[in-house]
């Protein structure tokens, strides 16, 4: 599969470069759609069809529509900006740190990776005792173990939603005060 993965990653890099450099925002939205399709294909090749489904539906479908709706309210052209050295350095250092962080990660599919060894004894063995005799392991994982995960995600999305609403409400309030 390496002969498919490497071209897809190269195309991803090309698309990201195009998104960063292009000044026509309409075309940039289009390139984000392409980026999302490519990313989803890559996830599919990494054997994660569920993540690829979500990426295709949210990234290529809804977010394209949302960005176009934003463009309808703002302009279609971006103002030319100067080359900023400090942000470039910060991004470069952060990227280098992230790449350095991946160096001691276990190999893909290694049997001694934490994901294979950590829940030991496994959820299958502990589930019945933890869940006070609930017989279905799938239910206990989805509804109980992952419940905390979902609670945290919901809190994050709620916070983001409040922030967006606060930003979007600002203009409406001023108009109300005028009238």
């Amino acid at each position, binding site marked *: *599969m390496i*002969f*498919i993965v490497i*071209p*897809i990653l190269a*195309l991803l890099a*090309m*698309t990201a470069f*195009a998104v960063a450099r*292009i000044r026509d925002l*309409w*075309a940039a*939205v*289009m*390139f984000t*759609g*392409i980026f999302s*399709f*490519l990313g*989803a*294909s890559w996830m*599919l*090749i990494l054997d994660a*069809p569920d993540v*690829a*489904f979500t990426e*295709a*539906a949210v990234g*290529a*479908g809804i977010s*394209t*529509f949302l960005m*176009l*709706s934003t*463009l*309808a*309210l*703002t302009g279609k052209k971006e103002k030319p900006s100067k080359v900023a050295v400090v942000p470039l350095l910060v991004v470069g250092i952060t990227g280098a740190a992230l790449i350095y962080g991946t160096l001691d990660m276990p190999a893909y599919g290694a049997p001694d990776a934490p994901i294979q060894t950590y829940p030991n004894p496994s959820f299958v063995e502990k589930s019945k005792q933890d869940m006070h005799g609930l017989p279905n392991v799938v239910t206990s994982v989805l509804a109980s173990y992952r419940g905390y995960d979902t609670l945290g995600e919901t809190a994050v999305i709620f916070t983001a939603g409040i922030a967006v609403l606060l930003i979007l409400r600002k203009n409406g309030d001023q108009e109300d005060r005028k009238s």
Partner: protein
Amino acid sequence: MESGFMHYGYVACSLSILVTMTLALIRAMLGPTVFDRVLALNMFGTKTVLLICVVSFLTGRQDFIDVALLYSLMNFIGMVALLRFSQLGYFGETESESTEVSA
């Protein structure tokens, strides 16, 4: 995993689809007009669907075909949204509503 002649056929097929995707991406980058870019994006989406189908046959994972179907639907919806936006310039119900918000 398929073996023998068919395997090489799938490999050659996916490589040529990847070349076509690269060409479409280059056209989308260069494309002077809106229509070049729209065509390039649509073709890119179609080629993604084809690539996923070929990969699913290459690896013997037939369930990837479902994802390919979803991709083609997403491609269609995104294309309709893009074309509608480039024709009208907004998604609102009425022209006056749109100008009111942007003012």
